[in-house]
C-alpha cells in the first residue's frame, strides 16, 4: 500500500486479556519495527525484523510481548495477559533496511487496558 497501515486504530481491553495488533508495511520494505509511545516512557523500541533474519527482540519489556512477521510482510504484535501499564500507542514502522534511509511510520494503535 501507499503507507504503513495499522489496525485497529483504537483498542480497549480488560486487564488480563490478550490483544493482537496488526501492521501492514509498505510493499517492498524489508525492515519492520515496532515502537511504543507512552506518557511515562516516551518512544521506546520494541522489536525489529529484517528480511528473513531472526528478529531483534531486545526492546520487548517482558515475555508477555511477542511478535511475528509472516511472509516478510504483515506483522502482528501480541500482548498476553495485558496489564494497565501496557496502555500506550503502539507504532509500527518500515523501511528498505538500507543505511540511514529513515523509517515510515503508521498512525499507531492506541491501546487502553481497563
Amino acid at each position: 500500500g501507499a503507507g504503513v497501515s495499522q489496525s485497529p486504530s483504537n483498542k480497549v481491553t480488560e486487564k488480563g486479556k490478550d490483544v493482537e495488533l496488526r501492521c501492514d508495511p509498505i510493499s517492498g520494505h524489508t525492515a519492520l519495527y515496532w515502537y511504543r509511545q507512552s506518557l511515562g516512557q516516551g518512544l521506546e523500541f520494541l522489536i525489529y525484523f529484517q528480511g528473513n533474519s531472526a528478529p531483534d527482540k531486545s526492546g520487548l519489556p517482558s515475555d508477555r510481548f511477542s511478535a511475528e512477521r509472516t511472509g516478510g510482510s504483515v506483522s502482528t504484535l501480541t500482548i498476553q495477559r495485558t496489564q494497565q501499564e501496557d496502555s500506550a500507542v503502539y507504532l509500527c514502522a518500515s523501511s528498505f533496511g538500507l543505511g540511514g534511509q529513515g523509517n515510515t511510520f503508521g498512525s499507531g494503535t492506541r491501546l487502553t487496558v481497563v
Partner: protein
Amino acid sequence: AQSVTQPDIHITVSEGASLELRCNYSYGATPYLFWYVQSPGQGLQLLLKYFSGDTLVQGIKGFEAEFKRSQSSFNLRKPSVHWSDAAEYFCAVGVNNAGNMLTFGGGTRLMVKP
C-alpha cells in the same frame, strides 16, 4: 549506551519568528540522525536525516538541521514558523548498522502564537 536529549520540553514562538530546537546525542560511532514531527493523533513524519556528507541538511516544510560532531548536537531550525508547525518534534539516533533502529529523545512540544 546511546541516548538522545532534547532539553526543551515546551517551546512557544510567535508566527513568523525563527525557531531552533535543540538535540544532543551520545553514541560511540558515527551516528545516523533524524528529526521527526508528530501532529496530534498522527504517526511520526520524517523531516530530515543525516548520516554523512554536508553537515547542514535540508528537509521538508522548510526545516534544516546542522550536525556538529564537536558538540554532539543536531539542532533543528526554521527561519520563519507557520501556525501549522505546531506539533511535537522528536530527535532520534539510529543505532544499528542500517541506522534505522531508533533511540528517541523525549520530544519538544512546539506551540505557535498568532
